[in-house]
């Protein structure tokens, strides 16, 4: 019925425009207590004592809970997807400012908040490390001992090291880089850096735990309900069926709300006090939960006479903050794409996940890729300039084509790199000369392209339930946080079953009801769960046909399901349940070389082109035009896909031009929307968004994920355009007017003194 490819509005639009959409934020349960977290004020220190007496004495306070109280309930109260390194509340040591140390519980949130301010903690302060490169030395060690979690198949190789801040080091060796660099016509080397920034979903982290009677129910704003269930059950030593995790709509996620965030804390508290407990963070507290990795990337390339890159060496240092979260996977999964979408024979990659005394870092829309593209596409532009080759031509000469092996050895199949590049060049009318401005206002343009591997090996399970009247319900644990997964899955199931997408109902994640899914992250849902939904719908279709045969209906005729049920059961009765799992194949990278010919089930490709205007008197950068293009295969819902592309690009524009967490002696000094500037409606430049024509042959109806692809090229495209306009190169994000002005003054030989 051509349900796929239709531009239908999201299924939940009415609930959202009327303010009635269900968010965890709205939930209140009878007898519920509110928790307010008391947080560490030092970046690194041994806990000497926690004074809670004054807080306990506040009328209305139910109790004050510290890490030691949690330890009485759970002997080893540490959690994490890669390492079991994060205590539910600080134990013995604190490792970053803002780390949860104690919680006040009260039935009035204001009382809890007031009482939390009366808690006092004393620490024996320890020296702290903030910089990822400095953390390579074991002078200051954040964790005495590392405890690998062993949960995920792709992280089974992590080691229990001591005396180091390196949570994971990933190394890839392909060809002979040293020899190729020695032979190269030119060797060019740069170091790029990115800043710490964060997701800032408008629904701040919130979770409610209901201790129940033998079954603990957790209502949470989380992207990984299945993981939460597994991890909470592990902490308590329970079977999974004693934990129920429910997730309604999310007010934004962007990778912040993956794995366990508040869930272990509210669960432990609810079991301690035997009452439901809710913790809802403030916007300020989000700055102490999870962030995006700051990075340092040293990149060195050898180039031949013909303008081909013959060798590339990449050293990437990921600043993971105090707890590893999913940083080790970022280090490895993103790490092997560090040389960029280029066909290079000799490659070395050394990628390090480091602990420091900052707010932890994890996944943020792109899973490390935007940090890498920032470096390799700035570097690519600089090489093209040095060689005097047009930057588009230089890229065309070097990009990976269909089925050529990427650095890891996995072929680039169904990755429309050349098409994305061509689309951007065409829209920018790259062949035409640009009006470069005059006087103090100069114009320039730049492009950048990037790519990403999807996550593997992972499992997604879907159930399609056709009721006796033919109406259909779809059960998945995918979380719709605005990306439109509910709608896309309805379209996929409807396409298979020959129904109308709008008539299919989606049941939101409830681990008592919806089957396992690895998580809503890394743009994996449309491909992985989308395939599971397609298979489950095919299963249901086959069962409906079997039912028709049993009912004696002639084969090949298309009876509506309601008639089939009626005929078979004599009335409106029965169900058909289609179910399926989707698990793509995977080969772990070789322990020695880091190579694998099957590291990902599909590739994402995204790029951007920018035209900018720079005011040489102020350093102010105005983006005159931003072109975004991605390969999303055959889009299931082009309208929703385009808004994903646009939203990702604007978000990345914030990370490019303004957003940065400011740190002073480990304290975040701009932890509010007033001081941390995200893009507003006036900051959106004229934009064009293009879904290039492509097909992912292994995807559901040719589709693949794209929620992150729009972020890839934005930052370097703008830096390249600034260079083009005024001849200065920015090596570190964000690119504020001050940064550009300082670079301009340095270029004129009149550098400004440091502030």
């Amino acid at each position, binding site marked *: 019925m051509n349900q796929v490819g239709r531009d239908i*509005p*999201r299924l*939940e*639009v*009415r*609930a*959202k*425009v*009327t*303010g*009635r*959409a269900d*968010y965890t*934020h*709205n939930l*209140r349960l009878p007898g519920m207590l509110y928790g307010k977290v008391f947080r560490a004020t030092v970046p690194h220190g041994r806990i000497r004592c926690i004074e809670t007496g004054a807080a306990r004495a506040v009328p209305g306070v139910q109790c004050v809970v510290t890490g030691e109280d949690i330890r009485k309930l759970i002997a080893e109260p540490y959690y994490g997807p890669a390492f079991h390194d994060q205590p539910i509340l600080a134990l013995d040591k604190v490792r970053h400012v803002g780390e949860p140390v104690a919680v006040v519980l009260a039935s009035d949130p*204001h009382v809890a908040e007031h009482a939390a301010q009366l808690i006092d903690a004393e620490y024996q302060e320890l020296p702290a490390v903030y910089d990822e490169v400095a953390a390579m030395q074991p002078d200051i060690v954040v964790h005495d001992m590392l405890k690998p979690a062993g949960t995920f198949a792709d992280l089974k190789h992590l080691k229990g090291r001591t005396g180091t801040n390196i949570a994971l080091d990933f190394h890839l060796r392909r060809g002979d880089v040293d020899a190729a660099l020695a032979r190269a016509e030119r060797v060019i080397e740069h170091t790029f850096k990115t800043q710490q920034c964060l*997701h*800032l*979903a*408008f*629904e*701040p982290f919130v979770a409610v735990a209901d201790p129940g009677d033998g079954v603990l129910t957790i209502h949470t704003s989380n992207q990984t309900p299945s993981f939460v269930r597994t991890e909470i059950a592990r902490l308590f030593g329970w079977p999974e069926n004693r934990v129920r995790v429910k997730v309604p*709509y*999310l*007010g*934004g*996620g*962007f990778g912040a709300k993956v794995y366990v965030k508040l869930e272990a804390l509210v669960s432990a508290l609810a079991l301690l006090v035997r009452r439901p407990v809710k913790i809802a963070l*403030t*916007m300020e507290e989000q700055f102490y939960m999870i962030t995006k990795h700051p990075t340092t990337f040293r990149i060195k390339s050898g180039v031949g006479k013909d303008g081909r890159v013959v060798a590339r060496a990449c050293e990437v240092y990921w600043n993971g903050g105090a707890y590893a979260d999913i940083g080790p996977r970022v280090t490895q999964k993103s790490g092997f794409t560090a040389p960029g979408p280029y066909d290079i024979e000799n490659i070395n990659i050394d990628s390090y996940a480091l602990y420091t005394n900052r707010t932890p870092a994890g996944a943020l829309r792109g899973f490390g890729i935007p940090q890498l593209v920032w470096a390799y596409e700035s570097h690519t532009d600089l090489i093209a300039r040095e060689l005097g080759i047009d930057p588009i031509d230089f890229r065309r000469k070097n990009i990976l084509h269909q089925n050529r092996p990427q650095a890891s050895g996995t072929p680039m199949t169904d990755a429309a790199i050349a098409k994305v590049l061509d689309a951007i060049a065409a829209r920018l009318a790259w062949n035409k000369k640009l009006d470069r401005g005059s006087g103090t206002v100069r114009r320039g343009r730049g492009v950048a392209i990037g790519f990403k591997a999807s996550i593997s090996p992972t499992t997604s399970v879907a159930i399609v339930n056709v009721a006796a009247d033919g109406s259909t319900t779809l059960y998945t644990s995918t979380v719709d*946080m*605005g*990306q*439109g997964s509910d709608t896309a899955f309805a379209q996929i199931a409807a396409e298979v079953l020959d129904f109308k997408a709008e008539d299919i109902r989606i049941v939101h994640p409830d681990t008592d009801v919806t089957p396992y899914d690895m998580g809503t992250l890394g743009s994996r849902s449309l491909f992985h769960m989308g395939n599971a939904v397609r298979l489950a719908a095919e299963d249901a279709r086959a069962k409906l046909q079997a039912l028709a045969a049993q009912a004696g209906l002639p084969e090949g005729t298309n009876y509506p399901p309601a008639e089939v049920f009626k005929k078979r059961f004599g009335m409106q009765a029965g169900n058909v349940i289609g179910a399926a799992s989707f698990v793509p194949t995977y080969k772990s990278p070789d322990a020695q070389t880091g190579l694998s010919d099957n590291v990902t089930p599909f590739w994402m490709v995204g790029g951007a082109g920018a035209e900018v205007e720079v005011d040489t008197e102020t350093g102010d950068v105005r983006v005159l035009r931003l072109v975004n293009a991605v390969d999303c295969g055959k889009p299931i819902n082009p*309208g*929703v896909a385009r*808004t*994903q592309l*646009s*939203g990702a690009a*604007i*978000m990345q524009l914030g990370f490019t031009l303004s957003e940065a967490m400011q740190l002073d002696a480990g304290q975040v000094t701009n932890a*509010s*929307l*007033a001081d941390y500037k*995200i*893009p*507003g*409606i*006036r900051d*959106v430049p004229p*934009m064009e968004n293009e879904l290039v024509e492509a097909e992912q042959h292994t995807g559901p109806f040719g589709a693949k994920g794209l929620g992150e692809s729009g972020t890839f090229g934005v930052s370097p495209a703008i830096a390249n355009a600034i260079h083009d306009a005024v001849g200065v190169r920015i090596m570190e994000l964000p690119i504020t007017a001050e940064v550009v002005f300082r670079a301009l003054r340095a270029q004129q030989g009149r550098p400004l003194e440091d502030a």
Partner: protein
Amino acid sequence: MMRTINFTLNGQPVSTAIEPHRNLVELLQRFDLFGARESCGQGLCGCCTVLVDDMAVSGCLYFAVWVDGKSVTTVEHLDAEGSLSVVQQAFIDCGAFQCGFCTPGFVLMTHQLLKAYPNPSDDDIRHYLSGNLCRCAAYPEIIEAVKLAARR
């Protein structure tokens, strides 16, 4: 120390006792209205937008007791007659949101915007809605939605 306040809530006269430190968002939650949401808590994002005597206010910074004797309208009232408002429908038709957390604020501000500027230019829209933020960055679609609503 409770204070009793009387006000009109979405067309109905109501009365309640509330402490003076609570804000308008908390007051509305007591009436099971969750469309006004506290996000930044600083008057910067507009997620908590509520109309008080037909003027948009930030519910996070507006004390509950201030509505005494006034008329309060929330997003939940816009379809009281059964059908969506023109603005709501335009937001749907233009896909002007993703997660939807900011949407009630944008919808209410757009109602006020269209009263002030029945035929707004892009600049009018950007200026008027600059006090509302959207982390999903549905801004281009929001601008389209406002223009569509104005045309209708």
